[in-house]
């Protein structure tokens, strides 16, 4: 029925199955949007945040999602700047993921602030010294860039490209993509970094505060590296996931492997820097503010295990896995490593957001706890649902994996060449 929209020669499930799949996520989205609506209309009293726990699930979600979205800029880097053409096989998918992550994050931010209608004040009276300003500006710009990068993919839809204007426009856009990608890389570098800086600059929060280089605390660079590290992993994971769900070969396995390898190297570097940073923090930064680092971990819920998990279990281990050829080329291990790596970064973002706020700063203060309200969780789910929906539509009607056609006649190619 919608076959005229599906790219020629790509097999997709029936419209009925597709609709059922979509229906589930639409319902989830609807539920989530209701929660978000409450937060917008009734105010943030709908959440379980408070004057002491000013950030919660949402900011954690934003940080994580944006780190995952880094795949878009990093694949762009590999493809357009380092000219690793094999990655053109995943760039479209990476762009869609990026778009989803960033638009999702921005949407949640808009709900998270008390007066969304005033959000544009940040552009009107920007405080260039604030990391948040940097974040806001970069993310907004990068979202635009991603939208532009998504346009050609969209316009190349079988039906749309029959309109000459679209056909030609996407063709021309394609030519300027390298430059846009370069800008995207620039922006990503800064906002991934300033997201880290967000906490690193908080001298009033000795648990998060870090010394740095120039105006940027060390977390700035750690966030950039960590994002770059899991960007490829996340692209790899999504690709595997999609091909499992759609039961299709989408890219040549070598590409997934090299994504894993790159991820591994950067993750290794991250673990190294993170360890150095932690040592400096424990031995110099924190004590200099008269905060003994051991106070931070005397809550059994937030014990030193968290540090171990963050650096070793979900950092070093997946890095080594990804760097061992044998494991990497076994899909099971590859995926496990990818999941561990992503988990590690998520944990890092969690610690930066939640633990920072949970720990007391005032000497006569107590350890705080926070559990998100259903409205917060709902809004969180809305973003997930939105992501799945947008990706599913894109996957069905657009060419996200150019190699898919080839791979579905891979066997034949060999066969043919034999007969020649």
């Amino acid at each position, binding site marked *: 029925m919608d076959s005229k929209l599906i790219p020629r020669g790509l097999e997709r499930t029936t419209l009925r199955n597709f609709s059922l799949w979509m229906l589930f996520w639409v319902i989830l989205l609807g539920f989530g949007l209701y929660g978000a609506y409450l937060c917008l209309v009734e105010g943030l009293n709908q959440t379980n945040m408070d004057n002491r726990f000013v950030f919660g699930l949402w900011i954690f979600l934003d940080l994580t999602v944006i780190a995952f979205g880094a795949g878009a800029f990093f694949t762009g880097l590999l493809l357009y700047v380092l000219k690793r053409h094999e990655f053109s096989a995943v760039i479209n998918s990476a762009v869609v993921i990026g778009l989803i992550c960033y638009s999702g994050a921005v949407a949640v931010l808009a709900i998270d602030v008390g007066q969304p209608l005033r959000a544009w004040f940040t552009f009107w009276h920007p405080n260039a010294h604030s990391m948040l300003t940097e974040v806001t500006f970069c993310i907004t710009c990068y979202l635009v860039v991603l939208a532009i990068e998504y346009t050609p993919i969209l316009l190349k839809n079988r039906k749309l490209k029959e309109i000459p204007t679209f056909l030609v426009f996407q063709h021309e856009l394609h030519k300027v993509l390298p430059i846009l990608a370069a800008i995207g890389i620039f922006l990503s570098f800064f906002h991934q970094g300033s997201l880290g800086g967000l906490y690193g600059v908080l001298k009033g929060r000795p648990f998060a505060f870090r010394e740095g280089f120039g105006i940027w605390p060390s977390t700035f660079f750690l966030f950039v590296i960590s994002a770059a590290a899991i960007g490829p992993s996340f692209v790899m994971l999504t690709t595997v996931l999609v091909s499992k769900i759609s039961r299709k070969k989408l890219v040549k396995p070598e590409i997934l492997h090299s994504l894993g390898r790159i991820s591994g190297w950067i993750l290794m570097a991250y673990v190294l820097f993170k360890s150095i940073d932690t040592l400096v923090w424990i031995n110099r930064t924190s004590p200099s503010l008269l905060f003994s680092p051991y106070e931070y971990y005397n809550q059994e819920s937030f014990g030193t295990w968290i540090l171990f998990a963050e650096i070793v279990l979900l950092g070093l281990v997946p890095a080594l896995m990804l760097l061992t050829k044998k494991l990497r080329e076994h899909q099971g291990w590859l995926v496990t490593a990818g999941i561990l790596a992503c988990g590690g970064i998520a944990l890092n973002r969690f610690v930066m957001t939640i633990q920072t706020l949970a720990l007391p700063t005032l000497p006569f203060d107590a350890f705080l706890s926070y559990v998100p309200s259903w409205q917060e969780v709902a809004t969180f789910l809305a973003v997930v649902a939105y992501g799945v929906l947008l990706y599913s539509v894109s996957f069905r009607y657009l060419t996200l994996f*150019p190699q898919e056609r080839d791979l579905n006649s891979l066997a034949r190619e060999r066969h*043919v*060449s034999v007969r020649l």
Partner: protein
Amino acid sequence: MFPFVYDFRWDTTSLVFLGTFFSVVAVVALMVTAASLRSLKNLRGRKIEAIRWHDMFEDLPAPARACRFSISGSARGRVCHNSFECGGCQMFPHLRAWEQHHRDQHEEVDIRSLGFNLHDDRLYHRGHTWVRQEEDGTCLIGLDDFAKRLLGPTPSIHLPPVGSTLELHGVAFTVQSGISTVRVISPMEGEVIEIGSSEQDWLMRVRPAEEPADTKHLLDGRDARRWIEFEMERLHQLIENPGVGATLADGGTPVEDFSEMRPGTDWDGVLGMMMLDV
């Protein structure tokens, strides 16, 4: 935000920061405008057909893009990167020369290959059209047997009006067969001067853009024979029916309509793949 507007801070950080921001915005805007302007230019300059062909060629699976010399066996596994425009291919002259030299002159051409009529006076195009150059310099264009069988007995063919121009690898005309419509790629550049009638084998008479018409990219009967085998092979793989392959391979008479061979396949997809229209 803007200098001299209320509450603008003149410190270095702000200036650097906003400077960077505005330049980023500028570059992005510039890129988009550039793209739009060039698109407008292209739209006016009638580059649409070329662009369509090039973009589409990118999306074709590797087998469909196999180099003619890899089909003829002279350059194994070579894939065309020049969208079948042999004229512009730097390898073409060498390969052609090599082939001329090594080809067995005495090999007689079986014009009935796998039950397809191949005419020696026709030049074949990878999009399953043929071109015949007449004495008067005009050319006749038609669909080859393979295409006819792909499209089935009663395809409805929509030809362009007399006087319209064809572009190389542009859409010559469209054929509708069943639910699916395919664009048939024009094997040459020129102006349509006559439309063939139903009893004739050809579909249109074209006055080539330049005399003599450039035919480098077309296959003569000899190349065509290997090519047809190759195409059969591709077809089998697509409709996934080894059985058919067998019967055809030993020269049995193929069915009149391929679509009858394997009901239930994504026939629209198959057509697209075979007729180079995705």
